[in-house]
């Protein structure tokens, strides 16, 4: 039996209202490639953040032993010193610096604060060779592709004498060729330099290809650890572990009353706002009936948010084409204001950065999208505004000291209710809800679902984007599955299951 390099014991981590990790135990042997799999929000990234000191010692309970020593990392710097390097999904490179500068950022080859550039470049070249990066070490990082940037991150980790390398979704943003190269590199580093790896990935087939062990995490708990050669290593087996939970009644009951098609999108195409040649939404067509709740399932980066935002008055993307039909009439939406006027609403994915004005109070947030309703000749009518805010606060059961409380001081669930109030106040007929229950506790989730059901009962067209499959299955009447900017499947509620959706996504990825 090989030496155990990492031993995480009874790790529990709670965020306000949510238990992200519940008594997690993880053992990693020296020299192995250990994969962590699980649904979005299962707790994989949180676990790695605990390990690497992003969540400092003291904010979680449990013990971490690295190379037999107990660790109390207070910051990422501490864990790096011990030989643990984490490469996040969003790369942490400075685009305006050269490859060599980035590799040695915060770890400069310097004497008395003066950088030895000859030495830096020589060492950088050595490391670049190690990771198979063929570029001039003085090239700016912004000028190389994302696949190569990933290699720079790995070279940076190697420069710190890394013993344990953690990669969070390393291939999520890469094309097939780059992904393949990266996986080969990992195998090579593992075999030749004995670097232990933990890899988090949604792409199960990749995991099966390279991992020695696979640990399945679900709802903040370790479900099982599969060993190569001992256990069965197949997609079906792993997906079963990922989603095999019983669905308790976390969703309010509802009898759908579905009418005719109220909202339809045809042949919708959107290009990346930063890259004219990158198609983000690829000829998408879908429809929503009145009183129907339609879900859009998919992994992060599938283009769901981009789809909703581009439909919402072109709030995202460039070179947008396609048709939007509402109630049999074609809509031309030039900006967000047009979209609101035509009865569209978009509840943002991230309420803190794009949904609310946190320094403003509840009342001001609720009226923001429809100030015309509480004003006359552009002069605000305080009474109308207060009345509307009071009514919605009551109706949606927003727990606060009053409508004058700052939204920044509310809990996640109540913040989300304020956002919903704001859009209910805009009197929409088509509502897009992007991750409507992200980061809020189970009780508030139930309340949010109830609100959504009520809106549907009023005959509104509702589109829900969610990365939590149980949620999609629990509340939607019909489900579209998106991957890589395309709609790759459509299922009715009764025929859909988590396994089927996962399979649909995975199969469309392989092609």
């Amino acid at each position, binding site marked *: 039996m090989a030496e155990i390099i990492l031993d995480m014991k009874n790790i529990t981590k709670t965020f306000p209202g949510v238990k992200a990790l519940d008594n997690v135990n993880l053992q990693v042997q020296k020299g192995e490639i250990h994969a962590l799999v699980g649904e979005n929000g299962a707790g994989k990234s949180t676990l790695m953040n605990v390990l690497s000191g992003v969540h400092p010692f003291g904010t979680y309970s449990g013990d971490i032993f690295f190379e037999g020593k107990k660790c109390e990392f207070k910051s990422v710097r501490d864990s790096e010193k011990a030989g643990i390097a984490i490469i996040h999904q969003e790369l942490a490179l400075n685009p305006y610096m050269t490859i060599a500068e980035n590799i040695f950022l915060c770890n400069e080859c310097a004497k008395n604060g003066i950088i030895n550039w000859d030495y830096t470049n020589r060492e950088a070249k050595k490391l670049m060779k190690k990771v198979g990066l063929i570029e001039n070490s003085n090239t700016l990082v912004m000028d190389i592709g994302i696949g190569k940037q990933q290699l720079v991150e790995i070279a940076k980790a190697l420069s710190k004498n890394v013993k344990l390398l953690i990669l969070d979704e390393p291939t999520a943003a890469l094309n097939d060729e780059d992904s393949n190269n990266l996986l080969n590199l990992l195998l090579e580093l593992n075999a030749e330099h004995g670097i232990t790896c933990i890899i988090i990935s949604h792409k199960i087939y990749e995991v099966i290809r390279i991992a020695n062990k696979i640990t399945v995490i679900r709802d903040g708990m370790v479900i099982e650890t599969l060993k190569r050669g001992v256990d069965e290593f197949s997609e079906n087996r792993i997906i079963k572990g990922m989603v095999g939970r019983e669905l308790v009644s976390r969703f309010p009951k509802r009898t759908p009353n579905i009418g005719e098609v109220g909202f339809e999108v045809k042949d919708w195409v959107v290009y990346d706002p930063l890259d004219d040649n990158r198609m983000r939404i690829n000829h998408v067509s879908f429809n929503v009936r009145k009183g129907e709740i339609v879900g859009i399932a998919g992994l992060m980066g599938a283009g769901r948010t981009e789809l909703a935002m581009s439909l919402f008055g072109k709030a995202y993307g460039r070179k947008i084409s396609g048709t939007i039909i509402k109630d049999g009439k074609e809509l031309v939406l030039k900006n967000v204001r047009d979209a*609101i006027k035509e009865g569209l609403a978009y509840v943002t994915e991230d309420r803190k*950065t794009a949904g609310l004005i946190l320094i403003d109070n509840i009342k001001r947030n609720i009226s923001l999208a429809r100030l015309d309703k509480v*004003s006359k000749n552009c002069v605000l009518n305080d009474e109308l505004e207060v009345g509307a805010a009071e009514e919605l606060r009551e109706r949606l059961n927003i727990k606060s000291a009053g409508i004058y409380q700052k939204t920044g001081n509310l809990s996640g669930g109540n913040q989300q209710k304020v956002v919903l109030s704001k859009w209910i106040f805009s009197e929409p007929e088509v509502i897009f809800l992007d991750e409507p229950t992200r980061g809020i506790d189970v009780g508030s989730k139930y309340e949010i679902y109830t609100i959504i059901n009520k809106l549907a009962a009023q005959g509104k067209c509702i589109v829900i984007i969610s990365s939590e499959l149980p949620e999609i299955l629990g509340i939607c009447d019909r489900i579209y599955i998106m991957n890589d900017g395309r709609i790759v499947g459509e299922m009715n509620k009764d025929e859909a299951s988590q396994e089927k959706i996962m399979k649909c996504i995975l199969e469309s990825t392989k092609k």
Partner: protein
Amino acid sequence: MEKHKDLLRHNIRQYGMLFALIAIVLIFQILTGGILLRPINVTRLILQNSYILILAVGMMLCILTGGHIDLSVGSIVAMVGASSALFSVRMGLPAPLSIFLGLLVGLLAGMWQGFWIAFVKIPPFIVTLAGMLIFNGINNIILNGQTVLLPKLYITIASDSIPDFFSGNGLHYTTVIIGFICSILYVIVKCIIRTNKIKNGFDVNSKQWFLGKLALVVLIINLFTYWLARANGLPYIVILLTVIIAVYSFITNKTVAGRHIYALGGNAKAAELSGINTRRVMFWVYANMGFLAALAGIVFAGRLNSASPTAGQGFELDTIAACFIGGASATGGVGTIIGAIIGSFIMGIMNNGMSIMGISTFWQSIIKGLVTILAVAFDVISKSKAKAR
């Protein structure tokens, strides 16, 4: 009572500023041996700071949109002064027309900057830095480096008081009467608003609180006009300032446009996704700044009695400091017109008080700088404490 405590806590910054102003007044009243609050000095204080007050109102709006500043206001002040000389003296146009044209020049300058900021998305700092250079250049080209005397109307606006229709012995009766009328109007309006609110079933403050506040405001208005009456009477500029403060307070508090400005500064992305045309807001905020800078330019030219090539130097810095002292947040979304006014008065009283005391301008500069830092530090610390709570 709970409610009052709550009210006080939420507005601590606002009240804190007011207390700071009162403290500074008291300190300088003592240090200057009572000269600071003499009627004639109070009048002087207002006249001296009138243009900074006007600029601070516009600057506050710029800062509200996201902590952006306008560095060009000093140059616009100078350019509008020079344009006034061009229109009224060289071209011989009547003074009212030349004032109107001067305001137009400022508005155009503001629109020019607003265009680059809002539609080309160049950072305001850079656009207004360029504006500072451009408008200063135009000013010098017009004046050719010379100082030009201006018509009487400019001086009247900037320095004169309204005529007294009653002959008083050392007391300007008209001013006292105006103060009296204003306070009656204030009481009537407030009472109507309150009864309407009660009628429609809205929460109002307790009766004692309401009456107390009313009495205090009436007292302040009358004391103020009485004080002015003991000097030369009500200056025209006070009327102008009152109108500006009232109009802009109304815009920021009670109109859709005002709400859009706060929303943009509070969270630009959320504002955009709520259907606010953020570019248009930015454009008009800077256009408005140009307009108010022009107004300040006319007042300042009147005060100097002339258009001067060196007019307006450093005004932008005094104005920006006044806004931050007055409670503007460096990241935008927080601040009030009244705050800007209080901040300007804190700066103005320090200037005036230290000048009376005969402190050198170099030391004055150091002290003003320290006060600015302290005011913002107070803001930052109280905010981080509020978060911890």
